[in-house]
C-alpha cells in the first residue's frame, strides 16, 4: 500500500470511521445511540464497499451488554475491534470492561459524551469524565483514556488506541463530544500501513502448541496478588500525554480537555491581546492523568481555572496535583463553553 496524504473536508464521525479502517480495524460491533451513531453508520458504508481487506466484521448487536462481550471475544482472539457508544451504553459495558482488564483483552471504545446523568439529553457535555477515569467497572478496573480536541487529532488517536490496546493489552477509551463528531473540519488523511499487532497470546485454538488462557478468575489470594501487582506495573508504564499552549509565562492557566480546550485556547489568545498572560494546559490522556506535567506547567501561574462541560469533574484531579486553590467555570446541561463568558470571568 502506498503512503500518501490527502486533504479533505470531513465530518468528525466520517473521519473517525475512515481513520479506523485505515489503521487496520478488523471488527466493529455496536448498538446505535445518539450522538455516536454516525460513526457506526459510516462504518457500515465502508464495510459494504469493501474499503479494506482487513475490515471483515461489521455487526449490529442486541445491546451494549452484548457489544462489549462481542468485542471481548474478538479481542481475546487477537483481532483489532472497536465500538462507539455514549454514556448510557458505556454504563452497560462496565461489567465487560472489568473482565477485559483482568483478562488483558485489547479493545477500543469511543465514548461520545452526552448530557447526563440518566437519559439526560443528546447535547454535548463532558459528563463521563469521572466514570471513565475513576470507575470503569467493578474491582478497580481501568483503561487508557484519550481525549481529542480536533477531528484531525481524533483520527490520529484511533490509530494510537489500536496500538496502545495491543501493546498494553487493555481497554482504551476515546472520550469525545458531540461537537467533534458532528462538525466539519479540513483534515489531512494519512494513508499509512495498518498497525501491526502481536497476537501470539490470543485464543484461536492451541494449534499443536501450548494452550492460551484468557482468564479473570484467581481464587487463590496469593496468586491473585501477583496478578494484580503485574497489572499495576503494566499500568504504570503507560505514558501520560499533554499539550501546553502558551503555558511558560502564563499567570492565568486554563486547564481543559477535548473541545473545551479549544475554546480555552481562543479565550487565552484573546486575553493575551488584552495584556493578560493566559495559557492552556490540555491533558491528552485523561487516564493516566498528566499530573506532573500540569504541576510543571502551572509553576508560574497565579490563577488556575478549570473549564469543563459538566458540574466539575476533572477539577478534582487538578486540585489533587496542584494543591492550591483552583477556580472552575462549569458549563452544564449540554451548553458548550462560551468564550465571552470565560473572558468575563477572567478579566
Amino acid at each position: 500500500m502506498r503512503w500518501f496524504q490527502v486533504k479533505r473536508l470531513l465530518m468528525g464521525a466520517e473521519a473517525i470511521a475512515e481513520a479506523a479502517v485505515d489503521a487496520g480495524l478488523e471488527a466493529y460491533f455496536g448498538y446505535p445511540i445518539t450522538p455516536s451513531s454516525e460513526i457506526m453508520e459510516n462504518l457500515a458504508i465502508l464495510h459494504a464497499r469493501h474499503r479494506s481487506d482487513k475490515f471483515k466484521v461489521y455487526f449490529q448487536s442486541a445491546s451494549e451488554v452484548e457489544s462489549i462481550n462481542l468485542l471481548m471475544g474478538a479481542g481475546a482472539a487477537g483481532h483489532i475491534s472497536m465500538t462507539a457508544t455514549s454514556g448510557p451504553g458505556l454504563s452497560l459495558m462496565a461489567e465487560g470492561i472489568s473482565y477485559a482488564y483482568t483478562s488483558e483483552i485489547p479493545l477500543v471504545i469511543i465514548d461520545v459524551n452526552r448530557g447526563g446523568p440518566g437519559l439526560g439529553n443528546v447535547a454535548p457535555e463532558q459528563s463521563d469524565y469521572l466514570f471513565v477515569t475513576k470507575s470503569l467497572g467493578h474491582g478497580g478496573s481501568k483503561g487508557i483514556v484519550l481525549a481529542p480536541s480536533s477531528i484531525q487529532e481524533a483520527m490520529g488517536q484511533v490509530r494510537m488506541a489500536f496500538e496502545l490496546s495491543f501493546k498494553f493489552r487493555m481497554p482504551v477509551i476515546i472520550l469525545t463530544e458531540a461537537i467533534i463528531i458532528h462538525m466539519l473540519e479540513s483534515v489531512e488523511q494519512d494513508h499509512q500501513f495498518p498497525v501491526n499487532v502481536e497476537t501470539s497470546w490470543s485464543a484461536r485454538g492451541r494449534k499443536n502448541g501450548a494452550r492460551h488462557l484468557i482468564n479473570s478468575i484467581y481464587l487463590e489470594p496469593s496468586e491473585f496478588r501477583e496478578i494484580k501487582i503485574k497489572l499495576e506495573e503494566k499500568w504504570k508504564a503507560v505514558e501520560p500525554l499533554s499539550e501546553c499552549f502558551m503555558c511558560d509565562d502564563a499567570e492565568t492557566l486554563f486547564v481543559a480537555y477535548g473541545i473545551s480546550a479549544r475554546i480555552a485556547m481562543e479565550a487565552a489568545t484573546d486575553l493575551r491581546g488584552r495584556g493578560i498572560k493566559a495559557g492552556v494546559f490540555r491533558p491528552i490522556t485523561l487516564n493516566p492523568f498528566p499530573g506532573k506535567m500540569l504541576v510543571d506547567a502551572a509553576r508560574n501561574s497565579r490563577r488556575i481555572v478549570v473549564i469543563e462541560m459538566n458540574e466539575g469533574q476533572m477539577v478534582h484531579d487538578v486540585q489533587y496535583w496542584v494543591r492550591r486553590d483552583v477556580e472552575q467555570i462549569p458549563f452544564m446541561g449540554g451548553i458548550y463553553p462560551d468564550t465571552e463568558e470565560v473572558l468575563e470571568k477572567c478579566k
Partner: protein
Amino acid sequence: MQIKQLSAVFPNAVNSYCPGCEHGLLLKFIAMALEELGITEKAVMVGSVGCSTLAFKFLNIDYVQAPHGRAPAIMTGIKEVEPEAIVFAVQGDGDALSIGLQELIYAANRGIPVTVFMYNNMVFGMTGGQMAPTTPEGMVTMTTPFGRNTEKSGPPIYSCELLSGLSRPSYIRRVVIAPKPVQLKDRVLYSSKEANESYKAVVSALKTQMMGGFSYVEFLGTCNVNWKMSILDSKKYAHNVSAKVYPPGLFRDRFGVDSVES
C-alpha cells in the same frame, strides 16, 4: 484394557466437582468428542460463571472466561473473527436462562455456528442452591424455603422448547446425563444408557457446528449437595422429577447428524 490419555485433558487434572455431580462427566465427554472429531487443536472453550467456571483447570485447550451469562456473546465475537475455530461453552441453567437469556437467544436466532452445552440442575449450584429459572413448582431451594410458587415467579423456562420457536438453530436436544439407578436385591447398579446418549449428543452438537449450524444440548444433571440428598436419591430425582418436568427429546436436527452412526 488400555486407558488412553485424552489430549484435551491435563494429565494431572483433578476433578474439583462434588462427588456424584455430572459436571465432570460432561467435560470428559467433551474432551472425548473433540478427540474423536479431531478438532482439539482448534477448539476454544468459553467459560461461563457457575460450577463450570473452573473447567480450564481440567481441559487443556484454549479458553476465554465470560462474565455471568455472556458466553454466547463472547462465542459470537470469537467465531466472527475466527470462523475456523470450534467454539463452545458449558453454561448452567442460571447462567444461560436467567442473566444470559438475551445473549443466548440472539446467538441462536442468528444461527452463529457455536455450541452451548447447558447443564440443568434446576438450581444455582455454585452460589449455594438458590432458585433458578428451571426450578420446578414446589421445589424447596435456599430462596424458596417453602417451595417455588410459580404464581409469583412464573412457570419454569423450557429452553429447548423456547429455542425451537426460532428458525435458525440447527440442533436442539435434551438428554438426561444422570445415570439411572437400578435397585437390585443387594446393591444398586447404574445404567450406562444416559452416558451413551449424552456422549452422542455432544458429538452431534459439535458436528452440527462443523457443518455451519448453531447447536444446543440441555443435560439434565444433579446437584445432590444443594438438593440436600444422597447421591443415590439425587439420581432418582433426576429421573423421577427432572425428566418428567423436562421431557428429553430431539427437538431439531437439521443436518441429520443424530441418525449417522458415529
